[in-house]
């Protein structure tokens, strides 16, 4: 967790620079870019947080605490008194207290809110880009089959078509469409990189255990880290399998054993007979990880060790029978 935010913010801007396509890239620019700019706007000074501020303008003072910078500390209390910002040291500390409490409360809230919601947007956008790219790639393949007499399936096929030099108007349109597919697939890759970098900062334990993309999907399906932390583990186990779950509740079919956590090696790599147990064990630990991430934010590597041990027991049980 420590170290994640600042590098993460720089990362956002890097992603924006690489993919200037309008629309899809825009929300990312909003979250990282402006915050980064605000940080830089403080500039380097040798002035205290109170310099040139109205002692009664609490909002501006809190902003100065958040955004200001200085090369070196100084005897700020004495300087503030000399500048008439406060009558004496005691009065200075009172103002400092009010300003730092307000600044830190606002800053913490803003960054907490921002962090998990940005992750939710990013992972949803990633899935959207993947889905649409695949859909359009099918159209490209159909069209290319009729026009160029080639068999080009999937996004890789669309990339091949995108490199084709068009000779006719129809080919112009086809190649242009193929390039859009290529662009969308590239955007999905960039979004995945963003998610992989951001998830460990938002939910360090969950990301370590589930992998960053699955962690982001779980947060997204629950609607946020707090919402995920409040889910019972039986719900986490079937997040993403809502259709099957409600079909089961209507009396059609068996209850789903797993939702998106199926993508985790501990579920997918376990023998089918034991998958339900593995999914239940994994969901239990992921739920705890999400709670630790939301309520304390501390790293708990022992969670992973406990899960490893549990899965090993489940798998060896499967081999015996």
């Amino acid at each position, binding site marked *: *967790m*420590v*170290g994640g*935010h*600042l590098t993460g913010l720089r990362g956002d801007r890097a992603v924006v620079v690489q993919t200037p396509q309008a629309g899809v890239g825009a929300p990312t620019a909003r979250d990282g870019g402006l915050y980064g700019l605000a940080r830089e706007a403080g500039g*380097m*000074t040798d*002035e*205290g*947080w109170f310099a040139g501020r109205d002692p009664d303008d609490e909002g501006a003072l809190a902003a*100065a*605490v*958040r955004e*200001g*910078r*200085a*090369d*070196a*500390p*100084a*005897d*700020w*209390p004495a300087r503030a008194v000399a500048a008439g910002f406060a009558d004496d040291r005691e009065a200075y*500390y*009172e103002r*400092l*207290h009010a300003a*730092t*409490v307000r*600044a*830190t*409360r606002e*800053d*913490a*809230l803003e*960054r*907490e809110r921002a*962090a998990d919601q940005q992750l939710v947007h990013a992972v949803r956008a990633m899935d959207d880009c993947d889905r649409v790219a695949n859909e359009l790639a099918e159209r490209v393949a159909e069209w290319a089959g009729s026009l160029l007499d080639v068999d080009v399936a999937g996004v890789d096929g669309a990339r091949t078509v995108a490199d084709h030099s068009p000779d006719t108007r129809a080919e112009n349109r086809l190649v242009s469409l193929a390039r859009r597919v290529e662009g969308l697939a590239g955007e999905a890759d960039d979004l995945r990189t963003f998610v992989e970098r951001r998830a460990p900062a938002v939910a360090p334990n969950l990301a370590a255990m589930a992998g960053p993309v699955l962690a982001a999907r779980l947060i997204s399906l629950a609607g946020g880290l707090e919402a995920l932390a409040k889910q019972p583990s039986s719900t986490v186990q079937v997040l993403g399998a809502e259709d099957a779950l409600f079909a089961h509740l209507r009396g059609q079919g068996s209850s789903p054993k797993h939702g998106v956590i199926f993508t985790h090696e501990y579920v997918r790599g376990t023998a089918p007979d034991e998958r339900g147990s593995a999914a239940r064990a994994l969901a239990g630990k992921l739920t705890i990880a999400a709670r630790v991430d*939301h*309520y*304390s*934010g501390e*790293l708990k*590597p022992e969670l992973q060790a406990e899960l490893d041990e549990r899965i090993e027991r489940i798998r060896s049980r499967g081999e015996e029978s």
Partner: protein
Amino acid sequence: MTPTLPEGVERRPLAGEEHLATRGPPVYGEPTDGTWRAWDPGRSKLGAMLDLGVETGLAGGDSVLYLGAAAGTTASHVADFAGPTYAVEFAPRPARDLVGVAADRGNLFPLLKDAREPATYAHVVEADLDAVVQDVATRGQARVAALNRRFLADDGRLVAAVKARSEDVTAEPGDVFEDVLAELEETYEVLATERLEPHHDDHLGVVARPR
């Protein structure tokens, strides 16, 4: 051994046991007696150092920069006996709790900042402090101490809890401490070290003064 506790920190019988204690509003459900509240060395590395009799140089009423304040458990006790206490924490979630702890302590100033970037709080934290208390669970703990040397008075004290697992989870803690101390010696003169077992595994308490 007669360890010197800072003024405002006492060993007192609380809830049937002798505890380190400070005077202030309770924070985490600790046992209290009147205005005194227990300082649990198992939840606080500085508390463990004081409990183990380490000579920290803290006298009471000191001006302090606390790096790695987390939710403010230890920082609240420091603010109870110290003067102006600047508490830097990097993660937003614990910072929210820290704000709650600071709200009813007029001398505790919470800051959501990165201890590896002192320029982002040098416009708030005053110079010539009596002590820097450091408990950051990040790699490069010696570097953090060196970077924050600028806030200390020449006769000030660095009181640090070095966490071996933050530097390298696989290495022997003893080897890690040796490396960290060697790097620390470039900017500080180390006055005392103490392993913090049984309160905290694989932690080394360090007291040092600027060179």
